[in-house]
């Protein structure tokens, strides 16, 4: 019941938001925040539920972005279709990556996923005749649906909202199913999970492939929104940002990465006022959160909420008891 109310309120706020925000610039940040929601939801399946840290998630986003951009630009494929194909290509690459990495865990998994994304970056950077190399891809067609071309930031905001809501819903349902429970079992105790018939190779693959598909969608969304992409998408900075959003927002919860995406899309912008000190402050914020909120922000919020509810109930009980006596 609580969940229903929270979701409804959040949705209403999200729908009304563009009417309250007049600044084009903040609309732009919101669009990026939605893209990050799509990315972090997928990554969270692997990091938060299966419990493996990946530094290669932005690769799938870049792959979705490049595939969709090139397919629509060079072959004239409708954008909706090219985004879908891009996401499928990203998912297929996710499949290959999980097949290559299923034997390793922990830090070795981190190293392999890093290497994997470096390879992708080099390939994209050097395939000048297809990807334009460091020059990037320009003039990518905008997103269009039924002949209606999306131009304004507000329209992209709503497109992003629809995609994000679908992705969040799917992740929520996965987590609440046999598959999601298997993820958690592998995270908690892999040997025991095996002994009840749960295989790491299989479920880590599911998490990676689903996450890669969503990242591919996010990539396509970004490419058709900005109309320009470059190998900067594959910068280490980018992958780190996504990971921080998941971890500091609250990994292993659906709400946490959403919170992380919104906060870490806006924090760097809010700090522009103290421009020179922006990066050091950012760094300190990260260190403090890692030290004092190792589980992220989301669990703290839900604890506060539960405490408040308990207190409220207690008060009510005291009052009614008082009435009887």
């Amino acid at each position, binding site marked *: 019941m609580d969940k229903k109310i929270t979701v409804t309120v959040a949705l209403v706020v999200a729908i009304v938001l563009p009417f309250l925000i007049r600044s084009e610039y903040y609309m732009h940040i919101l669009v990026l925040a939605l893209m990050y929601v799509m990315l972090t939801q997928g990554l969270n399946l692997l990091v938060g539920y299966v419990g493996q840290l990946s530094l290669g998630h932005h690769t799938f986003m870049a792959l979705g972005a490049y595939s969709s951009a090139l397919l629509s630009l060079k072959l004239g494929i409708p954008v909706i279709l090219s985004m879908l194909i891009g996401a499928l290509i990203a998912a297929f690459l996710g499949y290959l990556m999980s097949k290559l990495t299923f034997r390793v865990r922990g830090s070795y998994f981190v190293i392999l996923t890093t290497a994997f994304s470096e390879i992708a970056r080099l390939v994209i950077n050097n395939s000048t005749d297809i990807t334009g190399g460091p020059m990037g891809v320009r003039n990518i067609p905008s997103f269009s649906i039924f002949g209606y071309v999306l131009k304004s930031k507000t329209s992209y905001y709503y497109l992003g909202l629809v995609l994000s809501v679908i992705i969040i819903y799917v992740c929520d349902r996965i987590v609440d199913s046999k598959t999601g429970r298997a993820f958690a079992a592998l995270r*908690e105790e892999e040997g025991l999970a*095996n002994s*009840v018939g749960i295989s790491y190779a299989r479920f880590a693959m599911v998490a990676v492939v689903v996450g890669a598909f969503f990242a591919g969608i996010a990539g396509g969304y970004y490419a058709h929104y900005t109309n320009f992409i470059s190998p900067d998408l594959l910068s280490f900075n980018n992958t780190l940002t996504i990971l921080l959003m998941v971890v500091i927002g609250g990994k292993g919860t659906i709400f946490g990465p959403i919170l992380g995406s919104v906060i870490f899309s806006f924090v760097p912008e809010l700090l522009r006022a103290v421009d020179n000190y922006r990066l050091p402050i950012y760094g300190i914020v990260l260190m403090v959160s890692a030290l004092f909120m190792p589980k992220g922000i989301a669990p703290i919020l839900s604890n506060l909420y539960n405490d408040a509810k308990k207190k409220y109930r207690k008060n009510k009980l005291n009052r009614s008891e008082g009435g009887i006596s």
Partner: protein
Amino acid sequence: MAILEVRGLTKEFGGLTAVNNVSFDLHENEILGLIGPNGAGKTTTFNMIAGSLAATRGSVKYNGVEILGKKSTEIANLGIARTFQITAIFHGLTVLQNVVVSTHRLQSANILDSLFYTKRYREEEAAIREKAMDVLEFVGIAHLADVVASNLPYGQQRLLEVAIALATEPQVVLFDEPAAGLNPEETRMFDNLVCRIRDRDISILMIEHNMRLVMGISDRIICLNYGTLLAEGSPEEVSSNPLVIEAYLGKGGEE
């Protein structure tokens, strides 16, 4: 009839033969105790049967089908459950979630069912929760269903391990020192629990150091020493076998 036929099971770690040509049967509906001094190869034998360690040679037949060489997940899915020498539970999950997760092999609803919230999904979710509660009731920790597993006292963590194994609806359970670290009171309760598990038509192979427990409830006992099978028979036969006594206490001096 033998539900598990172990023949010539051997494990060599380089030059060291940890388990040497061990053969025995686990009969249907029996409690078979596996004893032996430390380092005798008991857990190694277990790990090979459960598929978490590759055997060097030998054969293990489960209901007449060879299972040696299969992965541990495949063996679990065939209906062989196990517990671990060092307590293994899903620490961060609640007691109920621990058991619900462990019914994995019995669940058939897929992601799509969950996505569209189908009847099959809803019915199955309700059914496995009920089933999980039954199992918790059976081992006696149903009142702790909502406690996070890592907060349980040690004795109840061991009971949760048993619940996890039973949740897979196994035909065979391998217990690796289930009573280690339990106090006498808990051990007595454990006695009773193991017997009740057998009464559910489950065959049990149990490594145990607590002689009173293992001698009291086992139908038969096998004893390993230095990786070889030393003795096999009823608890009385094995406990009076001079080789077994020697393995545990050493040879008498010439005084």
